């Protein structure tokens, strides 16, 4: 993926494979089901450990992968790595995480699973996704334009 945005076939193959694998992973691990997520957040019990093992499985692969990237000068099919540049632990990070956490705790749905769950064509999933898009627009276009 070059800076002037040309997507070669190799880049497209990677995007498709990554997306499909991500969607399959969320489905196989049942993270797409709010019941599983809320079971993990249910700290007073009964507790469902699924989410912890999903994170463990993901990090088992992701930690070596992302650490290996630090040894590379550039990605295999792009000119450079795009990583967040912010370093400070500011109030915006914390308040955003708290707001997200409250929403996540209410419904048991986060952004990735919400999109995968659209496959079930349930009204409440669509309601969540539309509200989420409204929340994103509210933040990016109204309250914080930076």
């Amino acid at each position, binding site marked *: 993926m070059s800076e002037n945005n040309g997507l070669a076939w190799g880049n497209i193959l990677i995007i498709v494979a990554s997306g499909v694998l991500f969607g399959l992973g969320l*489905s196989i691990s049942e993270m797409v089901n709010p019941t599983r997520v809320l079971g993990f957040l249910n700290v007073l019990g009964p507790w469902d450990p699924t989410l912890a093992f999903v994170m463990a499985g993901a990090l088992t692969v992701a930690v070596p992968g992302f650490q290996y990237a630090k040894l590379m000068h550039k990605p295999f099919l792009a000119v450079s*790595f795009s990583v967040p540049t912010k370093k400070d632990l500011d109030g915006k990070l914390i308040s955003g995480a708290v707001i997200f956490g409250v929403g996540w705790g209410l419904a048991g749905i986060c952004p990735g699973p919400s999109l995968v769950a659209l496959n079930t064509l349930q009204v409440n999933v669509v309601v969540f996704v539309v509200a989420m898009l409204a929340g994103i627009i509210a933040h990016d276009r109204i309250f914080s334009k930076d």
Partner: protein
Amino acid sequence: MTEFSFINAFAGGICIGFATVLMFLGNGRITGISGIIGGLMKPEKGQTSWRLIFVLSLITGGALFPWIWGRDLAVDVSSPWYIYVIAGLLVGYGTRNGSGCTSGHGICGMARFSPRSLVATVTFIIAAALTHTLVRLVTG
């Protein structure tokens, strides 16, 4: 369904991990879903096509799941509709304000050993657990 399956959880997690590593080592991009959706809502030049292809592929992964895994995609969203309105608004707003969600901070950021992502992940898990617990105590 409520029975915990270590194999499903770990195998699914490994798939997700591979997905993020593939995107990063191949294309140099962070697989943060809230960032990808946010980017589509407020398009930046040259950043729309990969995000759109990714979102469509992500949804396709869920559509292929029943054929590959031989099990229906179970999604229990039986709370009242307004819960999903409130939760969706908070998730959308919060993930943008906090620069990421479970995928961007929880997996990619943690794997990069980013202090910001570690703090964000611990914070949103605690906030979510407190919220869910409070709701359960209030509603019984």
